[in-house]
């Protein structure tokens, strides 16, 4: 990154020509950090526009300016524009309950969606652990009725989480699994689970879904049906930090298909509300996928998954990401 500036010295206003090689180098740098090509392009374009005509003094001046402009641009993209406080959202939902109007409390529902093997079920379990620590009562709905072992995987997690809660004295609310085996309609199971949660005073329902490729229309329609039937409070897209240029396509198509296929006569379709970026611990400082994902959706990264144990769940630290992306 530092090598890009040797050609500019004077204190005349920066021209497009001055900036071109710098921006090209910047784009290369971002791509090496695993930012998708088209996103790297757009970000550099924006940085270029913000700098053309600026008068900056000397070699050091240019460098500081360009670095600052890139840092600002990345920070803007990564900074959430909507609330990421899930605990507050869950509490608000609980507070909404008015016994004068209805006799049962409605649980807060979240569904985890994404392509195959990214870490949906594992990170759903981490989110569950976190909710238990905050004393919520959680029901996990096993709605991956396709992949071998998917139900048993959640059964193991629920068993572990119950034990952990007991041992640590947290999670007084408790956790349960709602499952109906394999081969059945996921949307229906989710619906049953939510009504079971209502009957048994659960605060939150976490809905696990099967992984699917974003181009697989029948599977995307089935997912949209689950969303349309159950209208979850949060639809969380789970994507891995390892993903390259596919990040763009995955998010665009999940969001679009969900919106398109979940719309009903009375209600517009629902899209992705936020992201959970997994396997953060496997990419060193190549954290560009986080930038690609937020650029494409304009939605916040709610959590970062950084390992394979229940405590490996973090909030995104924007400053850290910016630093990693700028580092040589």
């Amino acid at each position, binding site marked *: 990154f530092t090598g890009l500036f040797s050609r500019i010295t004077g204190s005349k206003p920066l021209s497009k020509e001055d900036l071109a090689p710098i921006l090209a180098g910047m784009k*290369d740098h971002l*791509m*090496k*950090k*695993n930012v998708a*090509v*088209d996103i790297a392009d757009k970000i550099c374009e924006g940085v270029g526009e913000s700098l053309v005509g600026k008068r900056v003094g000397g070699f050091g001046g240019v460098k500081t300016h360009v670095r600052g402009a890139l840092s600002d641009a990345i920070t803007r993209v990564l900074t959430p524009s909507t609330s990421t406080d899930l605990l507050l959202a869950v509490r608000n939902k609980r507070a909404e309950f008015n016994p004068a109007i209805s006799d049962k409390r409605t649980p807060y529902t979240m569904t985890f969606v994404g*392509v*195959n*093997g*990214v*870490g949906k*079920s*594992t990170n759903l*379990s981490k989110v569950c652990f976190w909710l238990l620590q905050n004393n919520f009562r959680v029901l996990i709905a096993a709605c991956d009725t*396709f*992949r*071998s*072992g*998917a*139900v*048993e*995987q*959640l*059964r*193991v*997690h629920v068993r*572990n989480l119950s034990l952990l809660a007991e041992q640590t004295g947290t999670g007084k609310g408790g956790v349960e699994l709602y499952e109906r085996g394999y081969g059945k309609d996921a949307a229906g199971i989710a619906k049953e689970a939510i009504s079971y949660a209502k009957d048994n005073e659960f605060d939150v329902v976490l809905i696990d879904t099967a992984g699917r*490729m*974003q*181009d*697989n229309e029948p599977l995307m329609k089935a997912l949209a049906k689950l969303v349309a039937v159950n209208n979850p409070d949060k639809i969380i897209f789970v994507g*891995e*930090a*390892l*993903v*390259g*240029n*596919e*990040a763009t*396509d*995955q998010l665009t*198509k999940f969001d679009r298909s969900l919106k398109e296929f979940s719309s009903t006569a009375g209600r517009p379709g629902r899209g992705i509300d936020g992201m959970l970026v997994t*396997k953060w*611990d*496997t*990419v*060193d400082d*190549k954290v*560009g*996928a986080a930038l690609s994902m937020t650029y494409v959706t304009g939605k916040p990264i709610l959590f970062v998954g950084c390992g*394979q144990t229940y405590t490996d769940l973090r909030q995104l630290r924007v400053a850290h990401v910016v630093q990693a992306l700028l580092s040589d």
Partner: protein
Amino acid sequence: MVLADLGRRINGAFAQLSRVPVIDDKALDALLKEVASALLESDVNVKLVANLRSKVKAKVKAAIESGADKGKDINRKNIIQKAIFDELVLLVDPGVEPYKPKKNHPNVIMAVGLQGNGKTTTCTKLAVYWQKRGLKSCIVCADTFRAGAFDQTRQSATKAKIPYFGSYTETDPVSIAAQGVMKFKKEKFEVIIVDTSGRHKQESELFQEMVQIGEAVKPDMTVLVLDASIGQAAEAQAKAFKESADFGAIIVTKMDGHAKGGGAISAVAATKTPIIFLGVGEHLYDLDKFSPEPFISKLLGMGDIQGFMDH
């Protein structure tokens, strides 16, 4: 078709080339720029792309300087196309022959790779593939870490009618792997596939465990299973796996999606290891055999490579 978009882009660039009146440096640069950006969008490693670009340039230059084009543009076009084709093939062909399971021999195959990349699914597919070709095949589940791992193997192997070995109570993967392989060797199985947990280079203990499993089962071939959607982290991870597990083959999974597999292709170049299969779906038979030249010519939409290579 797999990689269709990339092929279309590169073809478009070739078509562009045949429309320019004179094939000079500028035309070559424009072509290379287009090819390079198509490769970058497919996640091919940034350095590899730069490398490919300069190698093609040097080759073409040398050919023209030696008069191979006989001063004709049409010959120049062929030289350029062939240089690019060859470099693309080199990307996916390290020129190493992968191990082939032998009849009447207990061939031990061990699957390794990053978390969630498709090892367990691929193990069953491989067993089905070799079983169909007359080799008595089975699976050993040496993943004691992932929740529900043994259930996954049990269910998918049962569906595929493939014998399997594993345990709900044993927590040491090395011991399970050794037990399973020994049992199946005694029973005269010919392909014994050992499935392992997902791991990554940043956790050295996990890598150590992989080395120990390898020492216990002495695989005839270790296979790296790699997700087609991986980006720029592919090279470092693949290199680390190569160093510790010395895998002899790569299987790229999830090629049925939109991903172009450029990251996985970069792993080939980084480790000089051949791809043997592509995973193209979640079902038992969703496994395609891989060979470099047909792959690239298919990618570029060229039916008849021979005709194309003629110059």
